[in-house]
């Protein structure tokens, strides 16, 4: 390691962090950051990026230990500090912005108390001055109601706003270094844009020195001046952002860049395949039912679609749009208030308890988190043998052979069968989760965000598996995701939900084709692109708020091309488009095309 250059504001050398037995999870990491520079640490889970970032605060999570190296912030040797010295450094000179704001705020305290806490702990400002400064930061972060938001409790504020408030909490003490630990990973793409924009504005205005930790190259490209690529706790490549994107030197960097745009795994579905699943006029929700049968808190409004046998329907939308509820209704876990679900023309009873065993067998569901869906106390064999016994009465040797065959089907070695799920990796667990659904020999599998919790490379492999199984077994999927590129990679048709309304229903190939529903346009434009300057080129996304009037178009408050006097009073009609899609919109095809082309022209 070279000697720190004189203008380095933060300098790290030979950093080594070990776990329990002494194995290094971070080894020989060194870098420098100039004042006002933003450095990104990028890598997949387990690459050590968060561990390195936390070491800047002299902090290691339970079970980890900073075993060696040097971290210097300004003229302070962080790793040499006493406990009192560390408490003095944290929050005042080095501040931390966590991944999940919802978990990082104390649920029992008002936001203002928590935002001003570090200023008060370190005795920098009195309460009134700290609160004035916090309101100023809320305003700079473009939070609605900057004066009043501090009086609320964390559960009363939306996820995107909460994440912006964490930035105010970090910046209240004018720290020398700010650590941003995946601060937008848990957010919807549309929300992410506003949060990124707010972060970048304050970082630039206050000339903050920052470390930005992320797994998402496209996000990092908007924020960072320089990028370090990590794998297995070691640095693979370090380069200025533009150069890393244009001319990646390290093979692993090239692999990451390649995983960014998943290749299509679609094949043209047989054109005239009969509908396997037909859903019509579905209305469902939570809470007690009103007299007209509508639920108190409606989640799905008049949703209908058909899945031809052997094809994949993608369902996309932001969190809270009713995607998972749709899967639960089809599976019978949440009885629909109105509407029908037909499987090969045969009506499925609304409640799972009223369905026959054969009906249950034919529709299986795979949940997002294999960690919670698989019983941690059972072996993989036991987990897979249960549906075999329940649906097919298989026992003993027959069941044993079938379990081995199922594992082979999801490309797992049979030797894993006698392990509990806890002894498997994330990708392996998701494959077992999938094998459990396959054990029933279903016709339709409802996949609820099955790749969302996985790293890009592992998720891509699971997508490959889904595509192969579909081809081999003639399966159909209802594929729920918030990630547009994943949906495009695997789905034949796409359904876009917004607050439980079917905004657009299109062939997957036609989804990117204009004209499209204004909401589809917003979603597509919000997906980060792998180029610097993308963030400046997208328009405002606004927060998702349902319209106040019951008869208005649900997208009206957020729609950039709404027609006042029409969209806010009358429900939009279903409108077929010539590209083979149907949208809910007042604007006709020509007028949509005109406004959308005009908007793309704008700088």
């Amino acid at each position, binding site marked *: 390691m070279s000697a720190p250059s004189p203008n380095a504001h933060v300098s790290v050398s030979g950093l080594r962090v070990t776990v329990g037995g002494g194995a290094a999870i971070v080894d020989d990491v060194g870098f420098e950051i100039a004042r006002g520079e933003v450095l990104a640490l990028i890598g997949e889970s387990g690459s050590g990026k968060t561990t390195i970032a*936390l070491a800047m*605060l002299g*902090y290691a*999570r*339970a079970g980890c230990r900073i075993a060696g190296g040097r971290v210097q912030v300004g003229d302070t040797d962080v790793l040499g500090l006493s406990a009192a010295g560390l*408490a*003095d*450094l*944290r*929050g*005042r000179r080095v*501040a*931390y912005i*966590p991944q*999940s704001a919802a*978990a*990082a*705020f*104390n*649920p*029992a*305290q008002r936001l203002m108390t928590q935002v001003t*806490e*570090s200023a008060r*702990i*370190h005795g920098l400002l009195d309460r009134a001055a700290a609160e004035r400064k916090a309101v100023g930061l809320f305003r700079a972060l473009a939070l609605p109601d900057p004066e009043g938001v501090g009086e609320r*409790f964390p*559960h*009363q504020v939306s996820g995107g706003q909460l994440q912006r408030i964490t930035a105010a*909490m970090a910046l209240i003490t004018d720290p020398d270094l700010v650590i941003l630990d995946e601060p937008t990973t848990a957010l919807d793409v549309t929300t992410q844009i506003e949060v990124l924009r707010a972060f970048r504005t304050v970082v630039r205005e206050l000339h903050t020195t920052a470390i930005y930790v992320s797994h998402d190259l496209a996000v990092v490209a908007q924020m960072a001046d320089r990028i370090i690529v990590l794998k297995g706790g070691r640095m693979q490549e370090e380069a200025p952002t533009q150069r890393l994107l244009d001319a990646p030197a390290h093979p692993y960097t090239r692999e990451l860049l390649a995983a960014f745009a998943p290749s299509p795994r679609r094949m043209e579905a047989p054109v005239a395949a009969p509908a396997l699943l037909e859903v019509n006029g579905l209305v469902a929700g939570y809470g007690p039912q009103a007299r007209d049968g509508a639920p108190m808190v409606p989640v799905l409004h008049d949703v209908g679609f058909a899945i031809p046998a052997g094809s994949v329907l993608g369902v996309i939308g932001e969190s809270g749009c009713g995607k998972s509820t749709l899967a639960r209704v089809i599976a019978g876990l949440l009885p629909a208030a109105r509407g029908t679900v037909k499987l090969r023309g045969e009506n499925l009873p609304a409640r799972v308890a009223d369905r026959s065993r054969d009906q249950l067998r034919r529709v299986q569901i795979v949940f997002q988190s294999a960690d919670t869906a698989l019983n941690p106390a059972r072996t993989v064999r036991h987990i897979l043998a249960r549906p075999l016994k329940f649906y097919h009465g298989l026992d003993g040797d027959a069941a044993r052979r079938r379990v081995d065959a199922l594992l082979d089907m999801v490309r797992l070695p049979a030797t894993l069968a006698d392990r509990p799920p806890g002894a498997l990796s994330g990708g392996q667990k998701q494959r077992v989760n999938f094998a459990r659904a396959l054990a029933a020999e279903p016709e339709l599998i409802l996949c609820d965000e099955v790749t969302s919790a996985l790293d890009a490379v592992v998720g891509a492999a699971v997508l490959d598996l889904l595509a192969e199984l579909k081809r081999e077994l003639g399966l159909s999927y209802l594929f729920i995701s918030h990630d547009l590129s994943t949906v495009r990679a695997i789905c034949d048709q796409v359904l876009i939900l917004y607050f439980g309304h079917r905004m657009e229903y299109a062939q997957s190939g036609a989804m990117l084709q204009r004209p499209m529903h204004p909401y589809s346009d917003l979603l597509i434009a919000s997906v980060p692109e792998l180029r610097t300057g993308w963030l400046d080129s997208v328009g405002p996304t606004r927060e998702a708020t349902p319209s106040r009037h019951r008869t208005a178009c649900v997208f009206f408050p957020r729609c950039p091309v709404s027609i006042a006097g029409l969209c806010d009073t009358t429900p939009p009609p279903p409108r077929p488009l010539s590209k083979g899609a149907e949208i809910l919109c007042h604007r006709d095809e020509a007028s949509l095309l005109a406004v959308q082309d005009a908007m793309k022209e704008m700088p």
Partner: protein
Amino acid sequence: MNAAMLRLIALRLALGALTLFIVAALVFTATELLPGDVAEALLGQSATPAAVAGLRAALHLDQPSWWRFCLWLGGLLGGDPGVSLVNRLPVVVLIGNRLPNSLKLASITASVTVPLALLLGITTAMWRGSRYDRMVGMAIIGIVSVPEFLIASLAVLVFAVKLRWLPALAFRAGPQDFWAMMRLLAIPVGTLALVGIGQMSRMTRAALVTVLESSYVEMARLKGAGPLRIVLIHALPNALGPIVNAIALSTSFLLGGVIIVETIFNYPGLAKLMVDAVSTRDLPLVQACAMLFCAAYLALVLVADVVAILSNPRLRQR
């Protein structure tokens, strides 16, 4: 305190009343099932059949049991749980004599137990995994697994008999000053406190450890908060729900379940009154004591639930 909160408390009170009614029916049925006849038991073996029949009529024992249940329930609601079958004194008077003693023992024990248990629970949670935590944990599990009567007898043997520091009896009639009373109650209170501290401090520790491992506590640490601030300001308010429930359970046990201690120290409390009533088949007294214990238990649990709800802004503010 908003409307939703008041509605919840009203609902809980109504449910409590229903529970009490069910308990009343159960207690009444159970006492009906006790073998033997009260009138025969009262009059002894030399009683003439005529005398027994007369007494049965006087005690309404010749009436059907559902009618006696209604009579009893009506009396209970009117504040008159009846008259003792054994010594013809009103049950209210009997309980009124004993209740202050029980309340005194319970409140002194609680005021020793709760702060000590919180202190132990908080410190072991703060230094979890340390030698201190393991030692306290082992000591507590050791004490909880020893039966109360053994602890009480050993304490009497050591402090009263061998060392002669403290009296072996817990009650002396007549007025006395505060310190004399403390000396009298030291061993029973100590015995009860040992068990209570064990349960409460373990519950406090468990609730706190869960919260101390949350992201927001890590966040507070990364803001530079010291250990005391983290525990008292960030962790404790979020662990309050389970802690107050543990306190309520231990305290309700102090009101009704201290029979062993009351017997060993010959302390005239409610538990002893009830056990004596069972052995003499004094049914009105047994029933009244059971209802009292049940009501106290329900009240404590209700208070604990309300505190837990008030400490959680998600439930407090809709």
